[in-house]
């Protein structure tokens, strides 16, 4: 018989994540989003626009600061609280706006926080957390073999400056950001150029931006960027020379997690809407929700949403653990975040598709949000790596 040591077992939950203060913060964040954003979403979506002032409002309320040090105006670092805001923001239902705010706080600010000098943090991070400066980021992908894809800018050293040329087709929050974090190649003619990162002031001479309209993400300020002999001071070079690819790769892991957290909420919200609609809508003298085919379909979708959530929370748990210096198996976090992104995107798309279907004819009308979830989960900008790249990461993690 086994020897037993009852003391060996934790009395605490084995899989902790959210603490009480996070639950409290969630309530506050939910109220904030509902009060400041959600009510305006329908109008903003029609206008394809929302007030840039929103960054200041969110910053002033402290919601950009959860994961950053108080030294720069943050309230953390608390990655779990930051995840809570990511989730609550996603509930507003306007994926474009969400993408903008996420690009600013989750991506641009995080780049600055992790790879910036104190001087760069003072100049860019602190006012960004306050919502006084607005940041954007260029979209890149790193394939399974560690090759950076999407390097469209070329940077040439000239004295103390760098001269940037080229066009980047995909910059998140780019059309109205004050600064952009962009990657560039030292020499675009070689297959494996040196990768550099810059903080690019958008007021610099030679910078042109065109907002990019898509079928989804209508409120997003995604832009095409063009640089013509743009001079950037070496002080605005980001990250330690030689570590840029590692920084970008690391950033992508975080982005995948953030996108997965948002995708789960998007799936949940569209499922809730679908169910609510079918409860109201009558067909053949009874609510549509009383038909067995819809009940079973909702059961399947609800199951997928919960699977997606557990998978994503596990990735978050690993991320937090690694940040806190705990022992995480090498590659485990990469795999977990890739899986979370791969799985949740699909669930969000499928749920949004069934949400349209559950609405019948109304699902095809722009006055109902169903079609927006559907467009937003499919017609936005892909981020964090394509499905193919994510599968590649997962397969490699099994030694294949």
């Amino acid at each position, binding site marked *: 018989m086994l020897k037993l040591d009852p003391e060996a077992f934790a009395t605490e939950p084995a899989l902790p994540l959210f603490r009480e203060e996070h639950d409290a913060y969630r309530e506050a964040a939910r109220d904030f989003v509902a009060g400041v954003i959600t009510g305006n979403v329908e109008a903003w979506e029609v206008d394809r626009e929302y007030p840039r002032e929103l960054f200041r409002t969110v910053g002033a309320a402290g919601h950009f600061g959860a994961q950053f040090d108080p030294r720069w105006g943050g309230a953390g670092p608390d990655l779990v609280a930051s995840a809570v805001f990511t989730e609550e923001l996603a509930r507003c239902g306007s994926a474009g706006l969400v993408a903008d705010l996420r690009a600013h706080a989750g991506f641009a600010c995080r780049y600055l926080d992790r790879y910036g000098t104190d001087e760069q943090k003072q100049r860019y991070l602190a006012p960004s957390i306050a919502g006084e400066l607005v940041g954007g980021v260029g979209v890149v992908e790193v394939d399974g073999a560690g090759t950076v894809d999407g390097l469209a800018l070329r940077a040439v050293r000239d004295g103390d400056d760098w001269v940037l040329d080229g066009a980047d087709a995909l910059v998140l929050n780019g059309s109205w950001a004050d600064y952009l974090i962009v990657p560039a190649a030292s020499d675009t003619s070689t297959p494996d150029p040196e990768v550099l990162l810059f903080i690019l002031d958008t007021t610099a001479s030679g910078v042109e931006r065109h907002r990019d309209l*898509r079928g989804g993400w209508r409120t997003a300020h995604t832009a095409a960027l063009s640089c013509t002999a743009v001079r950037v001071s070496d002080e605005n070079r980001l990250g330690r020379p030689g570590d840029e690819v590692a920084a970008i790769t690391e950033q992508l892991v975080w982005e995948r997690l953030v996108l997965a957290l948002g995708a789960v909420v998007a799936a949940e919200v569209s499922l809730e809407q679908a169910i609510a609609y079918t409860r109201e809508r009558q067909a053949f003298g009874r609510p549509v929700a009383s038909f067995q085919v819809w009940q079973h379909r909702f059961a399947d979708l609800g199951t997928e949403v919960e699977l997606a959530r557990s998978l994503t929370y596990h990735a978050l748990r690993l991320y937090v653990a690694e940040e806190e210096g705990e022992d995480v198996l090498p590659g485990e976090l990469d795999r977990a975040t890739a899986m979370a992104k791969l799985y949740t995107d699909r669930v969000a798309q499928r749920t949004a598709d069934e949400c349209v279907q559950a609405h019948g004819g109304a699902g095809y009308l722009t006055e109902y949000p169903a079609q927006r979830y559907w467009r937003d989960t499919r017609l936005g900008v892909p981020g964090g790596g394509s499905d*193919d790249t994510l599968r590649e990461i997962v397969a490699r993690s099994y030694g294949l």
Partner: protein
Amino acid sequence: MTGSPFTTEHDDLRARVRHWVDEELLPHVDEWEAADLFPDEVFHRAGELGFLGLSVPVEDGGQGWDYWATVVFLEEISRASGSIAMGLGVQTDMCTPQIRQFGTAEQIEQYLKPAYRGEKIGSVGITEPDVGSDVASIRTHAKPTADGWVINGSKMYITNGVRADWVTMVVRTAEQDRSAPSAGMSLFLVDTDLPGFSVSKKLDKLGMRSSDTALLFLDDVHLPADALLGTEHEGFKQLMWGLQGERLAGGLLALGGAQMMFDQLLEDAGVRAGAGTGSLRSQRLRDRIAELATDLEANRRLIYDCCDKWNQGVYARTEIAMVKLAAAQLASKIADESMQLQAGNGHRAGDARESAWRDARLHRIGGGSDEVQRQVISRMMGL
């Protein structure tokens, strides 16, 4: 060609339609999509070219071909855009067949022939704001008057409804009787310029944006006696008579859209494969295309079998509902795969793939949703 139902005459017809689509429609489609309307001229021109009523006897104002000509037309017009195909499909196969079948000589002169000539634009009015698939609960009603009827009510999701000259409309002419839900309805030809008739709203839709879809309102619309189509109170049966043809045309439109997107996908894939780089590997893509091509071919073969029977006067009711269901699902599937392949590019507003993707989504909802088709099929399977 063996295995093909099309004669060289059909091939010639196909070339003519394709020429029209390439030369006169495709150059303007983006602009019409952006403007949320394709011009009435498209109807006029289609009539002028003899493309409306292809499979209708000459004496009824048609072109006297067999049904394969309609297949050719719907396949080719789908290459223009989902909206145009749907607008013309409603004209040729949804609002007119009942007139041909049940109409008086005068109605044929007044509505059917001008419709085939492209001079009058028609629409069909069944669904209502609170009705959906449950046709038996239609509330719009016509009360007899001394010299005709007076109609009150509203009709929802009416394709061509904003610009139509008339609506082939089903309305209640007797109180609803739950024990005989299909009883007490009649068909009318409702002119849209009558006093009391109004377009409440042009519906703002996810896709099919250059097609006009209306919410119609009828407030004491007085109709003359000869506005009744067919037999009083027999409207539901007459509607059902037309349903097979509508579904078959609906399936052909969905399949036409699917083929158009597949061709685009193949072209895009060729470009990708040619480039030899990018994150999407060629084998993966080849597999996906092989699967979609197989689905597409299976759909085409079943729908052609239905068309073949149709030509012989046989209505393959179960199979027609099946092709409507399957083709609608396939159109969505191909659209989705095309989006997946295009990643960033296909999502740009105004890109043809992006609008095709939105257009394709309608087929699973309009003309009887997937769920309605499954219900119909299972009934016909005796379940």
